C-alpha cells in the first residue's frame, strides 16, 4: 500500500490520494487533481475569517481617529516610520522562499522544501524579534491604558504579531513532519497551505504597518 502509484477505480482513473505517502506519489496526485484539495479550501476560508478580523480592527482604528481631534492624542509622538517599514519590507521578502517551497512541494522535491521553509523561518523570527523590541519601546512611551489611541494601536499590533508567531510555530511543525515523515499527500498540502498563510499574513503586515504609521505618513 505504501510507495506505489495511486490505484484506480474500476470505472475510471480516479486517484486514492491518501495512499500517496512518498514525495513522488504525492506530487503525481497533486498534478492529477482538477480542483484545489479540501485542505487548501479550508485554509483559504480560515484566512477569510482572519482577514475580516483585521479589517474590523483597522476600521475601528480609523473610526476612533474620526472621533478624536488630535490623533495621536496630545503628549504622544507620532510613530517613527523607518524601522517598521524596513522590518515589514524584510518580512514581505519571505514570500519568495515560501512560494518556492510550495512549488518544490508540488514537484515532490523534499530537500528544497526543507531548505526554503527554513530560510523563511529564520527571517520571520528575526522580524518578530525586531517587532517585539519596537513594541516594548512604544510601551515605554505611552500605554494602552491611557487613551483609546493606545488601546487600538497596541491591540492591532499585538494581533498581527500573534499571527506571525502562529506562522512561525506552523513553520516548525511542518518542517518537523516533512523532515521525519516525508512529503506525503497530507504534508504536501500542508506546505502549500503554509505558503498561503504567509502570503496573507504578509499582505496584512503591509496594511497593518501603513495603518500604524498613518499619522506620520
Amino acid at each position, binding site marked *: 500500500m505504501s510507495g506505489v502509484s495511486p490505484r484506480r477505480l474500476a470505472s475510471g482513473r*480516479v486517484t486514492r490520494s491518501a495512499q500517496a505517502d512518498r514525495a513522488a506519489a504525492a506530487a503525481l496526485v497533486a498534478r492529477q487533481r482538477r480542483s484545489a484539495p479540501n485542505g487548501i479550501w*479550508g485554509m483559504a476560508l480560515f484566512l477569510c475569517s482572519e482577514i475580516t478580523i483585521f479589517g474590523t480592527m483597522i476600521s475601528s482604528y480609523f473610526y*476612533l481617529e474620526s472621533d478624536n481631534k488630535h490623533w495621536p492624542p496630545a503628549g504622544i509622538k507620532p510613530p517613527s516610520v523607518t524601522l517598521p517599514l524596513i522590518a515589514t519590507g524584510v518580512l514581505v521578502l519571505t514570500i519568495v522562499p515560501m512560494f518556492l517551497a510550495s512549488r518544490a512541494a508540488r514537484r515532490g522535491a523534499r530537500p528544497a522544501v526543507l531548505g526554503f521553509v527554513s530560510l523563511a523561518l529564520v527571517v520571520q523570527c528575526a522580524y518578530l524579534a525586531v517587532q517585539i523590541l519596537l513594541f516594548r519601546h512604544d510601551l515605554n512611551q505611552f500605554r*494602552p491604558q491611557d487613551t*483609546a489611541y493606545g488601546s487600538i494601536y497596541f491591540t492591532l499590533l499585538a494581533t498581527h504579531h500573534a499571527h506571525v508567531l502562529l506562522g512561525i510555530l506552523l513553520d516548525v511543525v511542518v518542517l518537523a513532519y516533512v523532515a521525519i515523515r516525508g512529503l506525503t499527500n497530507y504534508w504536501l498540502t500542508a506546505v502549500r497551505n503554509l505558503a498561503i498563510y504567509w502570503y496573507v499574513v504578509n499582505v496584512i503586515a503591509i496594511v497593518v504597518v501603513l495603518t500604524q504609521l498613518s499619522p506620520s505618513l
Partner: protein
Amino acid sequence: MATTSTRNAEAQLDLLERVWAERKGLLGWITTTDHKRIGIMYFFTALVMFGAGGVEALLIRTQLIGPHQTVLSPQAYDEVFTMHGITMIFLFVIPMTTGAFGNYLIPLMIGARDMAFPRLNALSYWIYLGSAIFMYAGLAGGHAPNAGWFDYVPLASKTYDPGNNIDFYGWGLIFNGISSTAASINFIVTIFKLRAPGMSLNRMPLFCFAFLAVSFALLFALPSLSVAALFLELDRNLGFHFYDAAHGGDPLLWQNLFWIFGHPEVYIIILPAFGIATAIIPTFTHRKMVLFPLVALAEILVAFLGFGVWVHHMFTVGYPTLVTVYFAAASLIIVIPSGIQLFSWIATILTGTPEFKTPLLWIVGFIVYFMLGGLSGVALAAIPFDQQVHDSYFIIAHFHFVIFGAAVFPILGGMYFWFPKLTGRMYHEGIGKLSFWTTFIGTFVTFFPMHILGLLGMPRRIYTYPAGMGWTFLNALESVGAYVLASGLVLIVLNLFISYFRGPVCEADPWEGDTLEWSTSSPPPAYNFPVIPTVSSPYPMWDKEDRELDKRRLERGEGLMATGHETLATTMQDAEVDEILSMPSHSIWPPVCALMLFGIFAMLLLHHYWIAFGFGVAGGLALISWHDKEAHAG
C-alpha cells in the same frame, strides 16, 4: 455471472459495514467524527438549551403577568432576560439549524459519506457544548450576563457592571464563535467539493444553497463580534479605553461592531428556515419549486445584502439624516429577495396538490409569521416610525414573529419531516397537528398584542410596570399565551419521544421526497450510501432512471469504495469526479482541544493569564497530535 457479482457486492457491503462501524459505548460517542452522530449530539444539546431559554421566557412572562409582581427581583430579571436572548440565539437556534440539521442532512443531501473535515466537525460540537457550559456557569454562580443580549456599553463596562457577569458574555461569545466559524468552513468545503457526480452547483437542493449562504454569512459576520468582545474584555479587565468617551473612545464603536455582526446574524437565523421550507414544500405539494434558480439566487442575496443594513438598529443614536436614510433604503431592498421566496413558496403550494400533513402545516405557519414579521420590519424601515417604537414592545413583537414564528417553526416542522428518516418510525399525525395548532395559537396570543403594547408606549426590558397605563390586560393575555405556546412545544417533544419507541415502522421514503437522503435506509447506515449516487437534476429522487442506475451498480458491486473510510471529491462547479478521499474516523483530539479551549477561556475569566497560556500550549500540542494521524486508507 449475476451470482458472482451479487456475492461480490454482498462481500463489499459487509466490508463497508465493518469499516464504517461506530465504536460502542460512551467512548464511541466522545470520539466520533460521524456527521450523523455529531448532528444528534447537537440536536439534544440544542433541545436542552431551548428548554432553558423557554424556562427563562416563562419566568419573564410570569413576572410581567401583572403590575408590580415579585417573581423576580430586578437583578434576577436582568440576568434572566439577558440569558434568554443569549441562549435562544447562540445556544439554541444556530446550533440547532447548522449543527443538528445541517450536519445530519447536508452530506446525505449531496450524496457524500461525511463532511469534508470530520474531526473539525466534532471539534465544533465540543466547543459548542463547552461554551454553553461556560455561559451557564455564570448563571449557576449568580452572576450571569445582565446587560441584555446586545450588551451596550457603558452599562456593560467595569464601572457600571463590576462583577464578572459580562466576562461570561465576552469570553463566552468568542469561545462560541470558534465553533460556528469552524462549522462554516466545514459546510462550505463540503458543499463545494463533496457533491455526488452530476450534482453541478445549479442542481444542488435549495436546502444546500441556504446553508451555503448561511456559512459564508457566519464566516464574515462572526469576526466583528469577536473583535467587539475582545475590545470589551480588554476595556473591562486591562483598563483599555476602546469604548470610553472620556479617554478618546466611543460607546457607539461597540454598537457598530456588534450590529455589523448582529444584523447578518438574524439572516443567519432565518436562512436555514428558508432551506427547510424549500425541502418540505416540493415534497408535500408534489411539484417542483416555482422559479427554482431565482429562489436560490434570492437566498444568497439575502445573506449578502444583510451586511449593509446594520445601522437600522441605531436610528435613535443621533446620526445625521443622510446616514440613517441610506441604511433605511438598504433595509428596504432586502424585501425584494424575501418577497421572491415568499411568493415562490405560496405559488408552489397553490399550484401543487398539497397534502397538509404536520410538516407542511408548520411551513404554512412559518409563511404566515414570516409575512407578519416582515411587514412590521418594513414599517420599521420608516425612520420616523422606528424612532417612536424603537426599544419598545413593538420591536419585541417584530423579532419574535420572525425569530420564533418564522425561524423556529420550520425547525419544528423539520423535526417531524425527518423523524422517519432518523428513526425508521412514523410520528402520530393527530398529535402532530394538535401540537402545531397549539403552538401557532400560543405564538399569536403571546406576540401579537406586543405590537399594541409598543404603540401604547411600553418600553422593553422593564422588570415591572405601573397599573393604569393600559398595559395590564395585554400583558396578562400574553403571559397566558406563553403558557399555551409552551404546552404546544411540550406536545411535540412528547409526540416524538413516544413515537420513537412506539411509532409504526415505516419505509425509507414515506413522503416520496425529492432529495437524496430519502434514497438510503431509515436510519441511514454509517456509510450513508453503498454507492455514491449519480445526479442529473435538483430533484434526484424523482429521476427514476438515475436511481435505477445506482441499484444496478450496487448489484454489480461497482464503486462501493469499501476498502477504507472513503468518499468522493468532485470538481466545484460541475461535480465531475476528481479524487477518492480517505476520511478520518474516531479521534480523541477534538474533545481534548475543546477542553483546552475551555481551560483558556475559564482562566482568562478568572484573570489567571499564565495558566490560560499554559492551556494554550497544551491545546497546541493536542492539535499537533491531531494532525499526526493522517487519514489513511486501510
